[in-house]
């Protein structure tokens, strides 16, 4: 039932624009309804799965790492989670191919498929490493209890400084790459990890300290992609 309410706005928007602005009937109404039904079923199953699977395992692992007391393993885990979830992200693959095309057209690299593929792969690796590092920094922040805003401000300053030096062609892609790195499976896991850590460490508040990991993961790729554009 919840999912129907979640989805209603999209259906209303599309129907209104189609009927009132374009004044055309909706093509293939049956297909639209069938697709919408699938989306509703999918959303319901997904949320159920989150509650019984992804959230509990993320939190229980955070608790176990906290009670194990080894920061090294926790940092390794954080890096692996950030890197592993990003490298295979379909949206990232799409955007790095696009970036390679832009770079080739702009004359930054030769227009040769092999060279473009290498550029795209390098970019993907760069973004994945930057997300891995972001989660590591975020986890250390939770352990130490640093206020999130200072790190974010530092990151913003980094973005602004890099913008001044990066080639103009890469800026749009770099800014967008921050948004595409956090997939639907990563977000619940990373959130559960952060909240779980903050609630197992004494003196940390899960509300103030538990969130913020995703913010780092969407900030570092911007800086790293601009750096990549400058170095190549």
């Amino acid at each position, binding site marked *: 039932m919840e999912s129907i309410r979640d989805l209603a706005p999209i259906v209303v928007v599309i129907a209104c624009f189609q009927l009132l602005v374009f004044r055309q009937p909706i093509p293939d109404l049956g297909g639209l309804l069938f697709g919408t039904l*699938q989306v509703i079923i999918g959303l319901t199953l997904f949320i159920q799965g989150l509650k019984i*699977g992804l959230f509990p395992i993320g939190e229980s692992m955070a608790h176990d790492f906290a009670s194990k007391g080894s920061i090294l393993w926790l940092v390794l*885990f954080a890096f692996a989670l950030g890197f592993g979830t990003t490298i*295979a992200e379909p949206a990232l693959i799409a955007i790095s191919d696009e970036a390679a095309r832009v770079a080739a057209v702009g004359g930054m690299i030769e227009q040769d498929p092999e060279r473009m593929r290498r550029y795209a792969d390098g970019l993907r690796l760069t973004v994945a490493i930057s997300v891995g590092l972001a989660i590591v920094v975020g986890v250390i922040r939770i352990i130490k209890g640093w206020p999130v805003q200072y790190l974010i401000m530092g990151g913003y300053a980094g973005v602004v400084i890099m*913008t001044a030096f990066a080639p103009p062609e890469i800026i749009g892609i770099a800014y967008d790459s921050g948004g595409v790195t*956090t997939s639907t499976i990563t977000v619940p896991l990373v959130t559960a990890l952060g909240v779980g850590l903050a609630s197992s460490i004494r003196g940390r508040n899960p509300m103030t300290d538990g969130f913020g990991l995703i913010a780092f993961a969407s900030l570092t790729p911007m800086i790293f992609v601009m750096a990549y554009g400058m170095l190549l």
Partner: protein
Amino acid sequence: MNWLMDFLGTLQATVVDVLPIAAILFGFQLFVLRKNIRNLKQVLIGFGLVLLGLAFFLEGLEQALFPLGKLMAEQLTAPEFLGISQTAAELESDWSHYFWVYLFAFAIGLSTTIAEPSLIAVAIKANQVSGGAVGTWGLRIAVAFGVAIGISLGAYRIVSGTPLHYYIITGYIVVLIQTVFCPKSIIALAYDSGGVTTSTVTVPLVAALGLGLSSTIPGRNPMLDGFGLIAFASLFPIMSVMGYAQISEWMARRAKETRVRD
């Protein structure tokens, strides 16, 4: 039959996406933490449901909503619809030509964000952690308005052809100022909500809009100007969530003050 093949294809792609994540989780659990997973059966069922749910979700979007949404973005940005027969200079002076584009950008940003699964996940968690103080719907609507405003402004940027980084840097300054004044407990959550808005549902539709606009409007290069809408969609929710927190705090304080006075 056709549908089943499509569905299985999507399911397979989802499983492949999730495999590395599952490998990392179970690898660390078994070899580093060396503990059995509590409620293993339940966790596995949960993973299964997530996979199945995502496959249904993506397949449904791909079949029904995306084609129509993308078609609309194309129709709205087509020269005939915009009436681009005049000279470019005349056109730029009159923003009302693009009224429907902005309205569509706003509506599509608002409605797709409400259905974004990652945002639902974060909202559920925030509601739990805050003990109900942060309402799931309040957060989602605040984020959705942020995305809607962001995407409309992003569409305006493509139409007007102004450089992206001016907007983003101004946005950062606003965020910094808001950070100083807003309740401390919401800051991390607000920053997070910037990252979660743009995934499965929003990106394809918004990308179609950006590409359509930048390839129709004279003097815009899709390579240079087509990007950036996603950046807008991840910046503005930060402002709207902090704004929402500030407004609710202010209203709570005012209510308290009136009660004290009475």
